[in-house]
């Protein structure tokens, strides 16, 4: 029976969602979660530090896709599990050693898949056979361009957020448009004929890297084409759930990390000096002000700090004090793939992969670096500007959690302390779900193990190891969570065109069902239904009855929860005792107490039983 239902679901998905059907290879039992990332390791010896990882990786991670790096300059694997492959991405500077072999290998993969895989080719295709695979002749692709703006035509949706598209004068790869291809950007060639800077032909897309990004020459990297438009070609089309990396229980995740850079700077004040407090004491004060919100300290253990001289001893003592504070986690610097470079903060999440399939979704420099903020007037550490950058980012940010990285040396100045405090207040404030970095890393690991099986055009079965998690559905339109047909879900929240579904950490299997909603609500209700909108404290094991929910809250500082309730006179109880509820245009708010010592139970009754 389940098999029959699966077949029926897949058939329905193929009929109603051609894009989703396109991405499913023969034998696939779940939506694919990897893309083949072809790299030339002669040019980029470490793919994890290459262009795809740093520039495309974050967007791919947002789309629920992890790059599976394959070296085009070495022997190609012949035993790939194509059922997990969503598409193929390549980004070469020039020809690869055996382009004909690579083209044959790609064709064989498509044959094994049983469908044409979405393929995105950035820059040089890699050789004649690979250009021919795109339907064009790469040997005569390069032309001279005079830089004139009037000769450039671009589809509006390709314009990136950073700067309008322009192509400087000089040689540029611009092949003739293949017959039947759709141009994305064209350039008038020296012969007056149109040349393509990007085109789509069937499932294959080629884009010249001259229109992907530009180095400004003053240290800035600008996206010219829209990365979302580019990389979403590799994801299944149509509304479908993907694990989200930035939102937990309806709120953007906030990670606060203290880097030990400058930890022992400035010795303790004495009667003869006016040097002020040392960095470690100031950092301890800052951490205490977090009121138990999770903080991560970027060193393996207090004892591992270098402790030379009195300042070092004092620092060790302060680190011991910090570690004893509630909500404090230490963050291994040398294990688990975490890096904390003070100059170029980079966040890598998850353990080093033992096999390519083990690689978790990865967030890298692209998200974290802009959040560091440039120094400015009365803001030498850039923390004030960073806080403003985060505030102004569309909430929730489409790619990454809100990462606050503070160096201990930042505390040595008043503006640094002030900036760190305001940024911490923001990271742990009511708009965020504060999370310690270790838990976030574990969460991403569970994301890696999440499988999403289509059961119908708008219905999916989600299997996972449990733990917190969020699914996001982009371009949801008027679709909403159908509470009556879904299980293992705490609730839903809509941000812009996306629908965020909070999964129940106690559930290892969930069913997500969507239905058209007449209003803009994130969930479709029948009388008595109750759905979580947002919560700071951690909720789990939600049980629904006809007109009520019971949920357990544990391991969290005091905080608020907000609910959608299809009832006019709801009531709430915590551990059996009534608690007040406040209603505003966004729903019903219930404040919950500290649950770090012992779990508490929240019951909400919609009021329809009477």
């Amino acid at each position, binding site marked *: 029976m389940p098999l029959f239902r699966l077949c029926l679901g897949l058939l329905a998905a193929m009929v109603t969602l051609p894009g989703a059907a396109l991405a499913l290879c023969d034998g696939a039992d779940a939506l694919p979660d990897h893309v083949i990332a072809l790299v030339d390791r*002669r040019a980029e010896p470490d793919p994890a530090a290459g262009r795809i990882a740093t520039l495309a990786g974050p967007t791919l991670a947002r789309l629920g896709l992890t790059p599976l790096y394959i070296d085009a*300059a*070495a022997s190609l694997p012949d035993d790939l599990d194509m059922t997990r492959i969503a598409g193929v991405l390549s980004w070469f500077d020039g020809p690869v*050693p055996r382009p004909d072999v690579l083209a044959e290998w790609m064709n064989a993969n498509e044959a094994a898949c049983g469908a044409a895989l979405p393929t995105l080719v950035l820059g040089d295709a890699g050789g004649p056979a690979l250009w021919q695979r795109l339907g064009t002749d790469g040997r005569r692709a*390069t*032309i*001279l*361009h*005079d*830089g*004139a*703006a009037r000769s450039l035509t671009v589809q509006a949706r390709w314009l990136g957020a*950073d*700067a*309008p598209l*322009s192509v*400087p*004068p*000089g*040689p540029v790869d611009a092949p003739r448009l293949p017959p039947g291809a759709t141009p994305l950007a064209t350039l008038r060639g*020296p012969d007056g004929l149109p040349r393509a800077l990007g085109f789509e032909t069937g499932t294959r897309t080629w884009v010249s890297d001259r229109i992907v990004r530009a180095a*400004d*020459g*003053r240290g*800035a990297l*600008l996206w010219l084409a829209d990365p979302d438009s580019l990389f979403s070609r590799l994801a299944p089309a149509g509304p479908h759930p993907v694990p989200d990396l930035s939102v937990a229980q309806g709120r953007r995740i906030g990670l606060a990390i203290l880097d030990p850079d400058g930890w022992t700077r400035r010795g303790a004040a004495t009667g003869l000096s006016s040097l002020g407090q040392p960095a470690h004491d100031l950092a301890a004060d800052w951490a205490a002000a977090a009121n138990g919100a999770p903080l991560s300290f970027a060193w393996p253990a207090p004892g591992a700090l270098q402790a030379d001289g009195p300042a070092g001893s004092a620092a060790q003592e302060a680190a011991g004090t910090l570690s004893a504070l509630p909500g404090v986690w230490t963050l291994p610097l040398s294990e688990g793939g975490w890096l904390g470079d003070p100059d170029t903060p980079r966040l890598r999440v998850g353990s080093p992969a033992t096999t390519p399939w083990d690689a978790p979704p990865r967030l890298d420099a692209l998200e974290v670096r802009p959040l560091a903020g*440039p120094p*400015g*007037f*009365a*803001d030498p550490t850039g923390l*004030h*500007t960073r806080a*403003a*950058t985060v*505030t*102004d980012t569309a909430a929730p940010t489409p790619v990454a959690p809100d990462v606050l990285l503070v160096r201990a040396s930042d505390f040595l100045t*008043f*503006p640094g302390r*002030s*900036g760190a405090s*305001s940024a911490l207040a923001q990271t742990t404030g009511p708009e965020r779900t504060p999370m310690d970095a270790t838990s976030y890393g574990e969460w991403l690991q569970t994301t890696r193990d999440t499988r999403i099986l289509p059961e119908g055009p708008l219905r999916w079965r989600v299997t996972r190891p449990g733990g917190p998690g969020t699914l996001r559905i982009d371009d949801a339109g008027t679709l909403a969570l159908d509470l009556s047909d879904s299980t293992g879900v705490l609730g839903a929240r809509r941000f812009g065109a996306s629908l965020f579904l909070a999964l129940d950490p106690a559930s290892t299997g969930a069913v997500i069902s969507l239905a058209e909603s007449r209003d803009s609500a994130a969930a479709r209700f029948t009388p008595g239904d109750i759905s979580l909108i947002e919560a700071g404290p951690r909720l789990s094991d939600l049980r629904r009855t006809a007109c009520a929910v019971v949920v357990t809250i544990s391991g969290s500082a005091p905080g608020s929860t907000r609910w959608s309730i299809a009832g006019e006179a709801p009531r709430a109880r915590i551990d059996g005792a009534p608690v007040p509820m406040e209603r505003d245009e966004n729903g019903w708010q219930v404040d919950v107490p500290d649950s770090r010592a012992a779990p508490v139970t929240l019951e909400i009754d919609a009021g329809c039983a009477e």
Partner: protein
Amino acid sequence: MIRWREVLLALGALTLAFGAAALWLRPDPNLGTEADIAALPPAEALARLDAMDGPLAPQLAFRQAALAAEAGDTLRADTLLAQLADRTPEAAAIPVARADLALRRGDTAAAAGKLANAHALASDPEVRARLGLLLRRAGDTEAERLLLTATPLVELSGAERLRRVDLLAQLDAESALDDAVAAAALGGPESPALVERATALALTSGRDSVLIAAAEAWLGRSDAAVLARSLASGLALVPQRAAPVAAEVIARRPAARAILVTALAEAGAYGAARPLLRPWLEARGAPDASTWRAVTAYAERSGDLGALESLLRRAPDTAPAAALLPFVRYDGAQGLLPWRALLTEARLSEAPLVDAAWAAWRQRPDRAFAALERAARNGADPALWRIVAEDLDGTGYLERLRAMAARDPAVAAMFDG
């Protein structure tokens, strides 16, 4: 009496002068206040400045705004700076600070406006660079173009010169070309990119004479080899005009012949490179080292071995061992047969890949094996290395090389490259 009166008058004048000087040199009372403020903790310093009556001295008002901003009160800091700007409009530091505050609010348009104000008050390279980047991010191409064209080219940074050329090219190729040529003449790390721009602009707008004059200068510089590659990559894309342009450039600067031939060969512009070889072939006497390198590079890239054969016949004694590699590449080891008189031990030790090919041809697999190992460590072309190594198939030595690759990265790179 007269003398006493004069003395008294002189003393009086001196007294008045010292008095005036003392009044004139009287320390500014604000200095004391500034020192006091600097010694106070920031919160107390701000409170003390807030408590002062009347308009503060400019430096104190600026400090007051800085303290407010440090404490996170951006709006108040901006208001204080606006009031200060009304009183002292000539200070560029005020709009720069207000631009920083605008950036904190995420208001890049306001920040650009303030930086433009600051730049108008006092031209500053750092302010101009920041303003240019903000304008580029905002997509205000016209304002960015005005900013960069209002400043003399020589005062711009290399990146700004390049950007100015790109912005001008969007509207007017002629002035962009003039700028690109002038900017390339100024040198710097952006020179190759500027030469590439200038070449493209000249060739697409039909101003070959400008390109020829500029190229003559580029090829006379110390970084001529790098610039020649930029020039050649553009010329390679217009083969019908590349040959006359290249010939004219070399007619004006014959000393750059080897550099340009090498660059044209590397760019694949063989049709433009070939006529440039003629003077070497027609000359008498031994070619110099740069000539050998250029002719060898041409033969290596194009597969046209005629010029190289001609030189080898004319001056075999001066030929470097590397000049024999193109024969191995295109004709295999048997291509070395006509030149076997040149294959002395000294030459073979210079070029291990030639040594390996020749040894394999002579059925000396042990020597070929040793030479291939040496070639792998000397950074040989992996494609050519593999061709030579294939000749050892069946001798057991190819298998030994493969086994060696497992533990020797240099040999592994030859098989993988």
